[in-house]
């Protein structure tokens, strides 16, 4: 009896270990795909990851068409925005990347250096390459080559609630100083009215709101050659002080808000102004509500007249899985006015392919307030840098902006300390 029991336990242990080794069998599928790729065989399927259900239904339509044309199934996965970076890094470490993915432009350099991705320029057709705007291509380029593909792009500027401005008897400001001057007139917390809605707690979104001010004041995240910080100087500290001063008149949820809350504060007419794209107006339009009270203004200028819109570039990434050729074909089908163009139009984003302007009338319509004013700002749009270690640099900067806004440190001390930490990260 004891021997039989011991034998059963030992067998169970062997089966358990065998189950663990099944993983190594499946991880060789990438190698098989590579072998198939170099030959004439296509893989059975490829995987594309989208984030936050963006364009999910349209993606599925494109996937169906692709499968009917090539016989290759496109498996669409939908991940949350918030943990996409952690998830893809973990998969990449284990060699289990999807074939393509929607991501953020700031990942380009890091993924290229890590060897996770293949150069998109080498795989996509010349027609698609030429269709992208020069600005969009440069955001996705490292050392002169376009490593990732420009995807969704939005241009953010300042939007005002004209009703609140009129009620306060003030006109649309053109500089950040002017906004600060009129802020007290727009600030009535007892009646739930505030001058501005900003973020000063969430790492990524804090910089989304702060960078246009930093740039307008003549500072930047790094210096020109990217070897040191570009904000621990007079201009950067002045920009931070402006942000601290503005926060006094801002909706008090800035410590825990994300960019979505700033949009809600604006569309619910709690905040007189915020910095974003047409998404808020799109949300009001979709809900059948009036948005004629929204004034889209040019970005506010700094002391020297400089002004910048915030360009937000999302990308499509081609991972080095061995299926690059066929995956690039799917991305070429996806990057057409019929598919991705329709998603961009519905979302109120800015197209970065000429064919979208040519084939979708909404993008060329000068009276389309969802698109035309933001497209016009593209020449003065600046994008977040693509740096190795950007997530950590972004967090350090955002944390010190938060500390200054919360009164824990002066603007000078905050950016001096942040500058030292960022210099160390850039040197690593």
């Amino acid at each position: 009896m004891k021997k039989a029991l011991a034998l059963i336990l030992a067998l169970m242990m062997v089966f358990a270990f065998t189950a663990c080794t099944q993983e190594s069998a499946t991880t060789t599928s990438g190698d098989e795909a590579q072998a198939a790729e170099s030959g004439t065989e296509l893989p059975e399927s490829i995987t594309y990851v989208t984030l936050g259900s963006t364009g999910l239904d349209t993606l599925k339509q494109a996937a169906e068409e692709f499968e009917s044309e090539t016989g290759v199934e496109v498996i669409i996965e939908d991940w949350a925005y918030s943990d996409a970076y952690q998830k893809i890094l973990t998969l990449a470490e284990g060699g289990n990347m999807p074939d393509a993915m929607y991501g953020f432009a700031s990942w380009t350099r890091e993924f290229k250096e890590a060897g996770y991705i293949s150069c998109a320029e080498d795989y996509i057709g010349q027609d698609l390459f030429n269709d992208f705007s020069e600005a969009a291509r440069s955001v996705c380029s490292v050392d002169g080559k376009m490593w990732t593909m420009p995807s969704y792009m939005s241009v953010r500027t300042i939007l005002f609630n004209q009703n609140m401005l009129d009620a306060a008897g003030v006109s649309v400001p053109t500089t950040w100083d002017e906004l600060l001057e009129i802020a007290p007139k727009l600030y009535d917390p007892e009646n739930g009215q505030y001058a501005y809605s900003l973020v000063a707690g969430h790492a990524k979104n804090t910089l989304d709101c702060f960078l246009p001010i930093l740039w307008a004041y003549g500072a930047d995240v790094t210096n020109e050659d990217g070897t040191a910080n570009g904000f621990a100087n007079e201009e950067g500290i002045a920009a931070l002080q402006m942000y601290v001063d503005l926060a006094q008149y801002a909706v008090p949820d800035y410590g825990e808000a994300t960019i979505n809350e700033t949009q809600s504060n604006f569309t619910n007419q709690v905040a007189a102004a915020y910095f974003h794209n047409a998404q808020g107006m799109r949300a009001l339009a979709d809900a059948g509500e009036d948005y004629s009270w929204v004034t889209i203004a040019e970005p506010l200028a700094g002391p020297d007249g400089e002004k910048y819109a915030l360009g937000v570039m999302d990308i499509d990434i081609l991972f080095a899985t061995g299926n690059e050729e066929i995956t690039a074909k799917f991305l070429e089908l996806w990057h057409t006015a019929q598919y991705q163009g329709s998603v961009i139009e519905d979302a109120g984003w800015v197209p970065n392919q000429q064919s979208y302007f040519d084939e979708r009338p909404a993008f060329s319509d000068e009276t389309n307030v969802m698109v035309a004013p933001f497209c016009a700002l593209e020449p003065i749009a600046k994008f977040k840098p693509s740096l190795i270690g950007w997530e950590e640099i972004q967090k350090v900067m955002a944390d010190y902006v938060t500390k200054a806004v919360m009164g824990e440190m002066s603007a000078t001390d905050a950016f001096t300390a942040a500058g030292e930490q960022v210099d160390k990260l850039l040197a690593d």
Partner: protein
Amino acid sequence: MKKPKRIDRNKREKWLNMLYILPMLAVYVVFILYPMTSVMKLSLFDKKINGDMIFVGLQNFVDFFTNVDTPRVFLNTAIWVFLGVFLKLGLGLIMALALYKKFYGKKLITGIMLIPYAMPAAVACMIWRLLYNPMFGHIGQFLRDLGITTQAVGFLGNTKTSLIAVMIVNVWAVAPFCALNILSTLYSIPKYIYEAASIDGANAWQRFRCITMPLISSSMRTLGILIGIWAFNSFDVIYMMTQGGPANSSAILVNLIYDNAFRFNNRGYSAAISVVSFVLLSVFAILYVRAKEDEVSYE
């Protein structure tokens, strides 16, 4: 001739017993010992973006202890663990003493008391985030109605209050578990001890101080160490409520480990913080084992 047979049987039994514990030993080696030694090894390396592993010795530990945010994170962890344990045990004791007595609706109240403990953490965090919302949250509105504050207050978005705000949620969720444990210990105290004390003229406070507390102290000490270890490792509540922010004001050591490993891709540095956490937790573990040895009895 008989002796060799007995020796053979003993030897065979010993090998058989080894075979019985082999599966558990294998699980321990694969899922505990191997990952632990891998992390300790990783803490001595720096992994570059191109995958190169560079031996840096104790540099990761030096970087951790010289980081400007480290003292704050240690302080947060100490507050989270020690103050949190104190509050959980205190609230649990009060609830247990209340439930010790017989009263109408006791079973219903006990069931309601267990709801915070039974509720999934994600649901609890979502509810509390809404309660704490500075614009429309009930807590802020309640304080404004009482005249304590005139303006909207962001508890989660304020570096001074974020940690305490999240701790309240954690205490609210864990105190019922403490109450149940203390209650079961209270039920094990023989009633005749209280009767004897009453006959001797002891009042309620004296009975509590001289009988109840000594007899439950061992159990509470063990419980305190256990929930202290859980608090040290608790990641979910802080991550879901504030993600350790704003500006690391509510971050404890485990948040730092997560951020460095999965957000910043600093695996070696994260492993170094893990080793430091392991050393600190080992102290808790030793205290836990020692606490089990101390017992008070009046019998």
